[in-house]
């Protein structure tokens, strides 16, 4: 685990990742255990939902025409509509911001970068660690749903489970890569978390309310959350185009991060471009 930056980063994250895993696994198991009760009391729950305004349901990820009482509709409403994407996105933001900006603020970047490690290597391995960590979270969600299926009869086809999990991972990698790019460009972890969290919350609301507010409807496609679940992968399987949009943009952010770090001063607490070799100007 000490061979390179990617593995070392995962090693550093193992404790916090463990608790994220415990949290999401516990949540999905709890939700699964709840399913038989909902299914057996469908009438009462329908009456309750009638009283909720559509906008509120939208914010918690329940589409108005969705069947909430079959296993897929239930899981979409309780997990994949809001908790799962937010967990993956937040985890991505935190890790992406820590990746380079965190090491700069902690001062550990000095010893790491004084070795023969290249800046390119640092950024891309940090990105790799982010992707691997999101995949671990994804595998846990996938396994949790499989357990729910066996224990509580929340039956979801394996392919659809995998498709929905993949979209969640891509969403997390998208926000993680955005945070990595901002953090690598600025060297400021706090600023990065703030800005990217704002973007995530804003685009989440934009997507949720898009179905109800006409003005926002046309803007939905600028929200990453739109690509995450507009095609409802849990019910309909993978939408390759939407997956490519998220994955492609994540790679674009990685490239931006790689370019941003090339000309910066590291560990000086702010954006400072180093302009190389203007000797003539020195006179």
């Amino acid at each position, binding site marked *: 685990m000490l061979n390179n*930056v990617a593995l070392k980063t995962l090693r*550093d994250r193992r404790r916090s990742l463990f608790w994220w895993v415990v949290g999401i696994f516990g949540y999905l198991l709890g939700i699964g255990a709840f399913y038989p009760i909902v299914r057996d009391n469908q009438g009462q729950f329908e009456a309750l939902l009638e009283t909720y305004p559509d906008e509120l349901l939208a914010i918690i990820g329940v589409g108005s025409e969705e069947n909430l009482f079959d296993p897929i509709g239930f899981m979409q409403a309780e997990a994949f509509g809001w908790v799962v994407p937010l967990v993956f996105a937040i985890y991505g933001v935190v890790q992406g911001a820590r990746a380079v900006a965190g090491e700069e603020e902690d001062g550990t970047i*000095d010893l790491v970068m*004084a070795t*023969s490690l290249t800046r390119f290597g640092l950024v891309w391995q940090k990105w790799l660690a982010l992707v691997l960590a999101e995949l671990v979270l994804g595998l846990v969600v996938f396994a949790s749903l499989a357990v729910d299926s066996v224990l509580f009869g929340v039956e979801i086809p394996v392919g659809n489970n995998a498709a929905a999990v993949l979209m969640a991972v891509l969403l997390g990698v998208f926000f993680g890569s955005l945070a990595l790019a901002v953090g690598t460009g600025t060297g400021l972890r706090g600023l990065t978390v703030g800005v990217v969290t704002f973007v995530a919350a804003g685009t989440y609301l934009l997507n949720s309310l898009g179905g109800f507010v006409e003005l926002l409807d046309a803007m939905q496609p600028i929200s990453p959350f739109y690509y995450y679940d507009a095609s409802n992968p849990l019910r309909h399987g993978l939408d390759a185009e939407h997956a490519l949009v998220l994955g492609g943009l994540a790679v674009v952010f990685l490239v931006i991060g790689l370019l941003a770090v090339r000309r910066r*001063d590291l560990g000086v607490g702010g954006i*400072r471009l*180093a302009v190389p070799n203007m000797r003539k100007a*020195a006179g």
Partner: protein
Amino acid sequence: MSAQVGGEKLTVPVRLAGVTKSYGKARGVLDLDLEVRPGEVFGYLGPNGAGKTTTIRMLVDLIRPQQGTVEVLGGSPRDPAIRRRVGYLPGEVEFYSRMSARDFLTYIGNLRGRGGDAIAEKLSERIDLDLSRRIGDLSKGNRQKLGLVQALMHEPELVVLDEPTSGLDPLVQQEVYRLLDELKAEGVTVFFSSHVLSEVERVADRVGIIREGRLVEVEELEALRQKAVRTFEVVFEDAPHLAEFEHLDGVRMADVHGNVLHCQVVGAIDELLKAVAKHRVRDLVSHGADLEALFLDYYRGEED
């Protein structure tokens, strides 16, 4: 780039040419020219905020000059192969506090692709550093030792140390001086910064003095000593006459109050001591060459 030294072609370990790096007000360095000779211990002396850390961080490509060129071991510090041959200790060294010291050294060794575990173990044992401990549990002195071990474990050709003894207790300081002496004996070039003149005197061959981002002087240590100001306070049995001392060679300022003489001496102290010895002396206190006084000297030199 090479220079002829003792008939052997040797790479110039550090060469800065017209280097400017500014952070706005009163920070950074201005039009710096500096060359460090192979195998020497070069002391980079200046008060806090003079630009020492800025210079040093450019040598390992953490920051980059706005103007001029930085050359290390005949190449650019941007080249990973060059950095692999350099050992670096930052001024405020920070580690991953949850790792063990040993794991940290393994990691750094792996990043360099140059190992050094065996040397690290040996060195740590010698300077009494317990590698099995969590870095967060190490004292400031031990963390500094760890910083030195990681800077030396890969047998670098150039060692760059930013205030290596700052904030350490005297015992650990002595340890650091011993290490520097050994490096020198092995022919390793050392570039270290300090704001303490006595420390530079103790270990350096040559000294560069930096003030407000400008290199004021680069001198052999001997020449610097000649310029250094020392203060003497002599208590006599009887009251001497000021005239006996004030015109002596090297005495810059003298003052007699009753049976006490206060004076400042630049360079040689021989004449003063002989004049003092003509009296019965009850006590003599000497304050070592004072850095601030030395800088004041350079001020005056500029104004003249």
